[in-house]
């Protein structure tokens, strides 16, 4: 019975998503696009942090690699941008693999520091390798085309982003519900027991990490397609921490958590934008407060209270 209602709700929601753009003012359209991109990022990061239980403080690096990768492929090699999007994801996933193989031998604090260091390193490279990335000047990205159809405004780009996001969300959901997803969870819950049941810890940790890098890479490519300008200063520690906080505030390890978290954090940051330096202070305080009082996150707490206590 529940499933019947759920499906109806889902279909109605989907229909709304497709129909809504003409009714939104440009500012809101922009925000919706922005939120969708971060939903992709948060869902990806949740696979690593929420499901496998590993810390990653360098996610902005993969976001950036996807953005720069796709931008450079399209500008320097003339590859149509729509193909550059999955390519950007692939490049990011590749680097994710390179990092994961050695880094995931560690855990906890050490992993946090390695990923933090990696994030900083990548941003430094973006700044300093001017021959490739044009350094602090950044890169202007032309609007993507599909044949003769140009994604010339936020409304058109919306559909591109929406479809990509839905596709990735479905994949994430499929993985979570499959044997791999259970393996992830087993690692988070008890590595000892997981090993004793034949779960190859290292393999699955790497898979989760590479998947999240892939998601971040695609989000980066989409970001470039939609904002049309990328520069190194976006992809720093603050960005990585934002991704992290979306996962945590939303509800780590839950399915809807990262979605809720992404919406909450983006709106929060937007609301705080007016107040210059205060933005960081309030944001930082909110993080601390959440950790002390609401460590399960918004959706995590809702789920716990209403769904899990059977």
């Amino acid at each position: 019975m529940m499933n019947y209602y759920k499906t109806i709700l889902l279909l109605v929601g989907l229909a709304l998503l497709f129909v809504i753009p003409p009714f939104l003012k440009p500012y809101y359209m922009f925000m919706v696009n922005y939120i969708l991109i971060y939903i992709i990022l948060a869902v990806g990061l949740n696979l690593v942090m929420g499901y496998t239980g590993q810390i990653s403080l360098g996610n902005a690096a993969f976001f950036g690699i996807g953005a720069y990768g796709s931008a450079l492929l399209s500008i320097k090699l003339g590859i149509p941008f729509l193909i550059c999007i999955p390519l950007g994801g692939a490049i990011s996933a590749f680097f994710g693999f390179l990092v994961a193989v050695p880094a995931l031998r560690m855990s906890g604090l050490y992993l946090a520091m390695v990923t933090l260091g990696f994030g900083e390193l990548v941003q430094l490279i973006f700044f300093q390798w001017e021959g490739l990335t044009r350094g602090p000047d950044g890169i202007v990205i032309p609007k993507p085309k599909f044949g003769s159809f140009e994604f010339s405004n936020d409304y058109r780009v919306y559909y591109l982003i929406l479809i990509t996001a839905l596709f990735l969300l479905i994949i994430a959901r499929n993985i979570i519900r499959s044997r791999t997803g259970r393996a992830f969870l087993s690692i988070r819950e008890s590595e000892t027991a997981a090993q004793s049941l034949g779960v190859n810890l290292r393999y699955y940790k790497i898979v989760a990490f590479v998947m999240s890098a892939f998601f971040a890479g695609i989000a980066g490519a989409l970001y470039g397609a939609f904002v049309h300008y990328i520069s190194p200063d976006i992809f720093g520690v603050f960005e990585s921490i934002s991704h992290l906080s979306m996962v945590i505030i939303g509800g780590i390890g839950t399915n809807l958590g990262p979605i809720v978290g992404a919406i909450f954090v983006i709106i929060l940051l937007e609301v705080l934008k007016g107040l210059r330096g205060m933005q960081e202070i309030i944001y930082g305080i909110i993080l601390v407060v959440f950790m002390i009082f609401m460590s399960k996150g918004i959706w995590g707490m809702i789920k716990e209270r209403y769904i899990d206590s059977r």
Partner: protein
Amino acid sequence: MSVLSIKGVTMEFGGIKALSKIDMDLEECEIRGLIGPNGAGKTTVFNVITGIYRPKEGDIRFNGDSILGKKPHEISGLGIGRTFQNPQLFQTLTVMDNVLIGLHTLGKSSFVSEALKLPGERKEELELREKASHILEWIGLKEVADRLGCNLPFGQQKFLEFGRAIVCKPTLLLLDEPAAGLNFEEKVNLDRLVKLLRDEMKITILLIEHDMRLVMGISDRVTVLNYGEKIAEGLPSEVRKDRKVIEAYLGEEKKLRKPKT
């Protein structure tokens, strides 16, 4: 050929010998009790078998092939299952999910077919769920299949861990104090299930236990450890009378009574 053959295994932790030249051979479909005072090294034996520790000396053979130096998940994959002294359940997962993870080594779908939910994967998932359901019924947890692991009473948690370890039909099962914390009824049930495992599923079992009545009643043979050394081995009736064993359990002599049949 023995199912498990441990030869000359020595295990040291920073100078302290936890195990000293241990030899043990398990025959097929045998139930072997592993007993000894606290700290004798029993759980260490388990950890060495499952690859969590690498022994300083010695060899371990499973069905004739050496498993020394293999990683724990590889060893599980070869058919060795295990439970733990304190149940290592996946607390925030349901009973069903716990058991499904027990079937991990039987899954063959590729990552891609999982991501795209291809028909092959769907079919396999259904088969796995069926097997899981079957085991849950066998151990009596079918009604609570959707409950979270942490919401189960202790006795059921132990049975869940038990079910999770046997669902993929291992050749060898290591049980670490399975009866600890169980009430009388549960212990009877455990006794019955373990014997069924041996008789119907043809699983060889090595169990660590402190409940003498249970372990003497259930084991075909018993091995006794003390301070990391094997001090006795044989039929329960022989071991019970062995002087060295009695001395090791000084003060616990009263517990070495004949089990009620």
